[in-house]
């Protein structure tokens, strides 16, 4: 089943199917992964994290909703929300079509990055994890 889903290299994953990716400017992009978008199907609404708010790793910082279901968005890293993807308000389906690219949810200025990343899975570990579901 793991091979049904796109798992990007160089990205860190949570058990709740969020991802975090280090950017060149030191910020961290976060979103939900291909498995999450596939399970939710047809995303129709995204509740974005609050700009400039401080979030801790695994905090419910927003939500992603499909026609049938709501899924909390647990922020994969701690820090300050420095950008949110407002495009998703009008085109929430970008998460379905490009979860690791145009479907990014927020950018975080990390406050505890190395320790946070140690709690997440890399692509290889996440591939193994999906096999257990």
């Amino acid at each position, binding site marked *: 089943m793991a091979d049904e889903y796109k798992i990007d290299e160089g990205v860190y994953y949570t058990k709740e199917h969020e991802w975090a990716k280090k950017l060149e400017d030191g910020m961290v992009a976060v979103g939900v992964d291909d498995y999450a978008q596939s399970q939710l199907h047809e995303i129709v*609404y995204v509740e974005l994290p609050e700009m400039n708010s401080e979030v801790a790793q695994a905090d419910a910082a927003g939500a992603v909703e499909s*026609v049938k279901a*709501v899924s909390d968005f647990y922020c994969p890293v701690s820090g300050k929300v420095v950008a949110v993807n407002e495009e998703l308000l009008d085109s929430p389906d970008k998460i379905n079509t490009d979860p690791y690219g145009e479907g990014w949810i927020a950018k975080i200025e990390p406050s505890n990055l190395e320790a946070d990343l140690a709690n997440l899975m890399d692509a290889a570990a996440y591939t193994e994890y999906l096999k257990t579901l």
Partner: protein
Amino acid sequence: MDLKKTHIYEYHAEHGNVIDFGGYAMPVWYDGIQSEHKAVRESCGIFDTCHMGRTWATGPDVERFLNYIVTNNLATLEERGGLYTVMCKPTGGIVDDLILYKINDEKYWVVYNAGNREKDFKWLKKNSKDFKVKLEDVSDTVAMIAVQGPKAIDVMQKITEEKLDEVARFTVADLTISGLKVMAARTGYTGEDGFEIYVPDCSLDKPADALKIWNDLIAAGATPCGLGARDSLRLEAGLWLYGNDIDESINPLEAGLRWTVKLKKPSYFKGQRAIQKMKDDGVQKTLIGIMMDERGIPRHGYPILNMEEEEIGVVTSGGHSPTLGVGIAMAFVPPEYKKKGTELYVQVRKRNLKGKVVKHRPFYDDSVYGWKRDK
């Protein structure tokens, strides 16, 4: 637990996203809820409704019995006519909503909700003791398929011998579909024109007839639709979902079902005294429709607040309306808030989002969508 399978299961297993729906293996969607929803609003969709309850009620006392057990009045019903109604407990609480079709004075076709199949049949049986009535639950030997949408008649006509235009809204007819003798009622649960087809002598282990009609409808241009679209369509049409909007704690007067209660019918009916009392005393809550002004999706169980941010009610059914592109909901609130245009908040995950009370049966403009639309 093994899930119960319907006559159409073979198709669902191959093409659908199958889930456990109240013990039945049913598809939530095939291609997607929104595309299936759109197919029904704009063209034609079909639904497997074999999980619903179907009973033959026959005998010399059948009209007297049904008039005793339901709130609506059968006296106005002509042969081949259908009647939407509820049946109530002595407390006035709703046992279920259902449709009765009169075949003749001694024969009625009774169709009710999937989730209440066992309960309803027991309730009918238990209350029929003093009447000369025979009740036969044929839910597993008569298959049921709904064909819905503005093009439903055109699509169905391609595989039907009789002229479908001649079957009036809310009546039942004997038809020949895919060369098979069936019964079909011009009704549905989406707000659109269409039929519910009942395929007789079709047992669960020999579902070939039902599958033939299902596959022929698809070949004729119908889009197979799952339970997801069925729910979003009925919500837009403002139709009640048993277990969400109505249940045994809800009285028909509270749920906007006063039109199905005929308090003046000549003979006593189950629940009459309690409903009469509620009418005399006035209701404490009423079912309204809300359309969101702010972005956000109201869902079952979310609190409703007034402009002073005091909790006044609760969402019974809610969701994203694919046709209107906004969140819509049905909710119980005290009657003083029922006026159209009243502003309310829906609490969506701790945030109070603004919405307004709107006309909700249906939520959409019925000159543009639904069976009454301008042709």
